[in-house]
Structures are given as structure tokens and as C-alpha cells.
């Protein structure tokens, strides 16, 4: 599994499409997007990470770099989202961070 992480609106999806020469439909068939949104509602993050790892590509937004949110629900969201990303990165063969549409390989072999 290839895990792609990066800031919101950084062009993660577009990067994968371009690198693999896939349409959005083709990529969508083998990829899970915005997975950080799944983390808060899942009791067991390990199970969720294991299920997501069945996809070829998993894409998540970095959401943990702001000030601690005032609302408990938001704090839980970003805590769970961050933990899920760590678990996905552990399982991934390749981790790519995309910033401004530009890739950086954080783990594994991948020719950008």
C-alpha cells in the first residue's frame, strides 16, 4: 500500500493521477481518500488501518499542526486522525508527502 499524506489542497490526488497516469475514476477504484474523516468514528484504529491497507493507495490530510482546538470533538478528531496516519505509515510500503503538488518520499522506494 502506498500512503500519501499532506496538507489540505496540496494536490495529493492529482499527484497520484499524474504519476500513475490514471483518471480520477481509475484511481478511485483502488484508493481511499480523506481517511482522516473515518478515524473519529472507529473504535479500533488498528482494525481500520488493516482494512484501509487493502487498498493500493490511501490518502490522508495532515490536520495536526494547528493550535489545540477548543471543542472536545475537534480535539478527538485530530488526535484519532494523527494516530491513524501513524498506523497507516507503519503498514505502508511507501509513504509520500505532497506539498504544493510536489512529492517527497518519506519511506520506501518510489521514483518521483
Amino acid at each position: 500500500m502506498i500512503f500519501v499524506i499532506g496538507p489540505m489542497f496540496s494536490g495529493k490526488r492529482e499527484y497520484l493521477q499524474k504519476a500513475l497516469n490514471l483518471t480520477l475514476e481509475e484511481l478511485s477504484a483502488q484508493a481511499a481518500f480523506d481517511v482522516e474523516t473515518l478515524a473519529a468514528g472507529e473504535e479500533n484504529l488498528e482494525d481500520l488501518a488493516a482494512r484501509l491497507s487493502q487498498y493500493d493507495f490511501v490518502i490522508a490530510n495532515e490536520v495536526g499542526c494547528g493550535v489545540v482546538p477548543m471543542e472536545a470533538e475537534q480535539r478527538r478528531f485530530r488526535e484519532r486522525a494523527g494516530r491513524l496516519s501513524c498506523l497507516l505509515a507503519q503498514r505502508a510500503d511507501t509513504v509520500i508527502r505532497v506539498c504544493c503538488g510536489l512529492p517527497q518520499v518519506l519511506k520506501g522506494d518510489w521514483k518521483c
Partner: protein
Amino acid sequence: MLTLVIGGAASGKSEFAENLVLTLPGQRVYIATMEPYDGECLTRIEKHRRQRVGKGFLTLERYRDLGGLEVPAGANVLLECMSNLLANELYSHQGGGSAAVLKGVERLYTRCANLTIVTNEVFSGGKDYEGDTLHYLRELGAVNRALAAQADRVVEVVCGCPNVLKGRLP
């Protein structure tokens, strides 16, 4: 050469960008985009002015319509910063949105030898945004990606240290 420098608040991106421009021979021009509408803006502008003292920049203030700005031909231009310029173009009556920003950059770059643009990393602080803020994030993200695609080099600055995402540093 077109260079994009991105970083979070107080990451040292401005100083890094200034020092990068200092390595270039020739005239240096600083385009300041922050409109001084309150005391906090003035304080910030003053801090940046002090930081540039002795670095030999001609400062030009430009809040909108970058394409209409005349700069000395062949100058090394530092544009700071994209996040202010885009907000001015998006939210003022005379503004032309992100299209005006990108067109302005294109025109400016034809006149100068080197253009260095500073922009902000504001996209990793969570997803609890809506309305105007979400729209602004989406637009700035698109502008940053478009600039990064055109740029010869893209550098992310983290606590003053460069993380080169594209191209190479001198």
C-alpha cells in the same frame, strides 16, 4: 529563475528568502503586499522593514494588481507575501481573485531576472473551516500548486531550515 518559498507562521521563511535573494547580483526589489489597516499590521511591517535594513532592497508597496506594477527591468524581485496578496485580491472591491494573482506573477516575471515568492503553509491545522475561510484555503492551495509547477525551485522552510521540494539551492 522563479523560486517559491513556503512555510508556517514565524518559520523563518522571510529571512531565508531575503538571504536567498542576497546571493544574486544586481538590483534588489521588495514588493510588500500587506495593507496597513491597523496597528498590528504596522508593527509587523516595521519588523520586516528592520529585518531588511542594510540588505539593499528597494521597497515597493503593492496590495493588488501585481500585473500593473512596474519594476526596474532585470531586477531580483522578492514578493512577500502571496497569502496577503491573494486575500487582497479576493476580498476587496477592486480585486480580481486568484486569476489576477497568477496573471500578475506571469507579467512581473517577464520583467525581472529572478522572482522569489513567499507564501504560507496554512493547510495542516485541521478541517474545521467553512465559508470564506474554506474558500480562501482552496484558492491559496490552487495558487501555491500553480506557482510550484512553474517554479524552478520550491523550498519549504521549517524553523529556519530549508527543505528543498524542487530544484536545488545555490
